C-alpha cells in the first residue's frame, strides 16, 4: 500500500474556515470546482487524484438561502470522492444542519437530523467530525463513527483571558443547557444560575424566571447556538433587571438569522462571543470571535494518524 495522505476539500459554505484549517495543518486545499448549473443543480469537479487518499471535506451548515444547496454540495462531493476511490471520506461539519429537528415532538414531525445522518451515510461518508451537536444523541443516528468535538476548551481559554473571571457567574439561558454550563462552571470554580423559560412556539420565547443570585456579578450566558437571538436578548434583560453588572453571551454556533442583529443591538448584552463554526457577517462592535480551527485541524491530524481524539475534549490546541 502506498502511503496515503490528507486531502482537504472545501465546499462553498465557509472558505475562510477551510483556509484556516489548511494553514494550521500545513496541507493545502485540494482543487475542487463546486458550482451551480444555470438550472440550479449543483456541479462538482474534483481537480486532482484522490485515489486511496484520506479525504476530509469541510462544509458547515449555514446560509438562510443556501443551507440546502450546501448540504447537496456536501453529499455530491462525498459521493464524487467515493466513486473516485478515496480510501476514507470524513465529513467535517462544524455546525451540523438540521440538528434541532432531532425528535418527533409532534405527530408526524420529521426527524430531519436522522434523515441527514442517513443521507450522509448513503452518499458514502465513513466518518463525521462535528462540534457541539445540539443534542449529543444525534451521534446515535449514525452507523459510522462521529467525533463530536467541544468548543468548551477554547471557550474556557477565552473566558479566562478576556473576561472579569473573578467576579463572574455562569448562566444557562434554558434548562436544556444546564449541563453544559455546569461543566464550565465546575472547571472555572464559579457559581452558576439558570433561567427557566416557558416556550410556546419555536423561535418565540414567552416568560422567563431566573433561578440564582446574580446581583453585582458579571454574567456569562453560555449556549450552544444563537439563532434569532430572542432567548439571549430576553435573558440579558432578565439578568440586568435582577442586578447583573454586565452580561456577556458566549455561544458556539453564531447563526444570527432573521432580525438577530437588531435584537442584539437593542439588547442589554455588553458583548456577544461566538466561534467561527459558521461564517458571521454581523457588523456589531459588541461581537467577538473565537477561532476553533486549531481544534478541527488537530482532530483531522489525529484521526489521520490514528491517535486518540479525546485529548481535544479537555484541551484547546494553540
Amino acid at each position: 500500500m502506498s502511503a496515503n495522505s490528507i486531502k482537504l476539500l472545501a465546499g462553498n459554505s465557509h472558505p475562510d474556515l477551510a483556509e484556516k484549517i489548511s494553514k494550521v495543518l500545513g496541507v493545502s486545499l485540494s482543487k475542487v470546482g463546486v458550482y451551480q448549473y444555470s438550472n440550479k443543480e449543483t456541479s462538482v469537479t474534483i481537480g486532482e487524484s484522490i485515489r486511496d487518499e484520506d479525504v476530509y471535506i469541510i462544509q458547515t451548515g449555514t446560509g438562510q438561502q443556501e443551507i440546502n444547496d450546501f448540504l447537496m454540495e456536501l453529499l455530491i462531493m462525498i459521493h464524487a470522492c467515493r466513486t473516485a476511490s478515496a480510501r476514507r471520506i470524513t465529513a467535517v461539519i462544524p455546525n451540523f444542519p438540521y440538528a434541532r429537528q432531532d425528535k418527533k415532538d409532534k405527530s408526524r414531525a420529521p426527524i430531519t437530523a436522522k434523515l441527514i445522518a442517513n443521507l450522509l451515510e448513503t452518499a458514502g461518508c465513513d466518518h463525521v467530525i462535528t462540534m457541539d451537536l445540539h443534542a449529543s444523541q444525534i451521534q446515535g443516528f449514525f452507523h459510522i463513527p462521529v467525533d463530536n468535538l467541544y468548543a468548551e476548551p477554547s471557550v474556557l481559554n477565552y473566558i479566562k483571558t478576556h473576561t472579569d473571571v473573578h467576579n463572574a457567574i455562569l448562566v444557562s439561558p434554558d434548562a436544556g443547557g444546564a449541563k453544559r454550563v455546569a461543566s464550565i462552571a465546575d472547571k472555572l470554580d464559579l457559581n452558576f444560575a439558570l433561567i427557566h423559560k416557558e416556550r410556546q412556539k419555536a423561535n418565540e420565547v414567552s416568560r422567563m424566571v431566573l433561578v440564582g443570585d446574580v446581583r453585582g456579578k458579571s454574567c456569562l450566558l453560555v449556549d450552544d447556538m444563537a439563532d434569532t437571538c430572542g432567548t439571549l436578548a430576553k435573558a440579558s434583560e432578565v439578568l440586568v433587571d435582577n442586578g447583573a453588572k454586565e452580561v456577556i453571551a458566549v455561544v458556539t454556533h453564531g447563526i444570527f438569522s432573521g432580525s438577530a442583529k437588531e435584537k442584539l443591538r437593542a439588547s442589554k448584552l455588553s458583548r456577544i462571543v461566538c466561534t467561527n463554526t459558521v461564517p458571521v457577517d454581523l457588523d456589531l462592535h459588541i461581537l467577538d470571535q473565537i477561532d476553533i480551527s486549531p481544534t478541527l485541524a488537530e482532530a483531522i491530524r489525529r484521526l489521520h494518524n490514528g491517535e486518540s481524539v479525546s485529548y481535544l475534549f479537555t484541551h484547546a490546541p494553540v
Partner: protein
Amino acid sequence: MSNIVVFGGNSHPSLVNQICDNLGIKPSEVKLGKFSNGETSISIGESVREKDVYVIQSGCGHVNDNFLELLILLNACKTASASRVTAVMPYFCYSRQPDIPYTAKGAPLISKPKEVYTFESHPGTPLPSVLTTQKPLSHNVPENITECIIESAEELPDGLKQPLPKRLNMDTNLHKSPSQSRIPVVPEREENSSDLGSLFNASNAGYKLWVAQAGTLVANLLTTAGADHVITMDLHDAQFQGFFDIPVDNLYCKPIAQNYIQYNIPDYKEAVLVSPDAGGAKRAASIADALELSFALIHKERRSQLPKGPPNATFTSGGGLPISSHPLLGSSLGRSASHEMSHSSSKYVQTTMLVGDVRNKVCIIVDDLVDTSYTITRAAKLLKDQGASKVYALITHGVFSGDALNRVSQSAIDKIIVTNTVPQEKTIEVLGKDRVQVLNVSRVFGESIRRIHNGESISMLFEHGW
C-alpha cells in the same frame, strides 16, 4: 379512492391541484416552510398511518431546496407509519449527467441576458450540403446560404471572439478538404481564465477531471429517505431506472405529443421530425414511426484536439490525455486570473450538421429537455437555414434556465410546445400565448397514481394518450 393521500411540494402547486382534480380528491394538508435559519420545515396535517402516500415534487426552481423538501416529506411520512410512500417527480432533477464539467457551450453558469442572439454554434454551423458534397455551388442553391455564412463572422455578443470563420469564399474554400473546414476551433473564453485555471491547467495533465455524477446519489438518497416507488416522466436516460433498487415507473410524453401533432399541426403528414442531437434520435424516430413521418437528425460532433505542445505542460506525469483547458464557463469566485490556461492544452472542436432533407418542410424538433436552450435554438436556425418553412419544438421538460427564454423568443422557433411537468407561467409570459402551447400531463400522472394505487397495470399509459 380510499386510503390514498397526496401531498404536494412547493415546486409546482398547480400541477398538484390538477392531478388531484383528476383523481377526484383534495391534496392533503401539509405546511411547508422554512425556519429562520433557512432549514426546511414541514408539518403534516393529517394522519398517514397505513395510508398509500404520494408526494408530488418536480425538480425545478430552487432544485436543492425542493429536493430536500421532498426527502424530508418522504421521510416524515415513512416515520409516521405510512404503508407505502411514492415519490412523484414529473421532472427528475439531476437526471442529466454531463461528463465534462460544463459542456463547451451547453450548460454554462447563468449567462448574462443579451440583446441579440445569433444561435450560431461556436463556430458557425457549416453547411453540410455544400461542404460534404463539394460540388461547386450551382444556381439552385438558395442565396441565403451565403448570407448566413457572412453572418457567422460577426463578433458574438457575449464577447466571444469568433475564430476567423472560413468565409465560404466560393473559389478557395471548396477545394479544401472538408475535414479542415468542418472542424473549426472553438474560441477560448477570456472570462474563463479565472481561478479555474489552476484547476484545469496543463500541469494537471495525466489526471482526468473527476466530475461528480449525481444520478446514482440522487436515486440512493430517495431510497434512503424512504421512497418505495418512484413515478417520473421521460427520464433523460432510460438507464437511470437501473440506479434504483425500488420500482421506477417512467411515463412517456409520447402519446400526448403524438396527439398534439395529429390534431394541431396542419398537414402534419408532410412534416419532418427532427432530433436535435444523436442522443434523442430514438425518441424522435419512434414518434416518426408511429405517425409515419420522415425523420432528420442534427449531428453534433465535439472532439478535443490534441495539443501539439502546450507551453506549460509537463508530460512527465503519466502522460495521459491532456484535458480541455476551458470546459468551465466562468466561475462564481472572481479570483485572480491566470491567463496561461487559455493558451495551453487542448482545444475543443465542434461541428453541427443536418442529416436529412427539410427544404420547404414543416420541422418538428423533438427533445426531452430544454435547459439553456442552446441546442434547440441552434437547431432551429440550422433548419431554417436549410430551408425549413416552419419550425415547431416539442419538448417534455421546459426548464428554461438562465436567459433561455430570451434566447427562445429571439430564435427561429415558430412555436414551442411544452408540457407542464415544470411550471410554464413564465414561458407564456415571455413568449406570448400564441407561440407557446402547454400540454397538460396531469391526466397521465393522475391515472398512473390511480392504477398504481389499485394495483393495475400502467403499461397501457405508455401507448395511449391521456
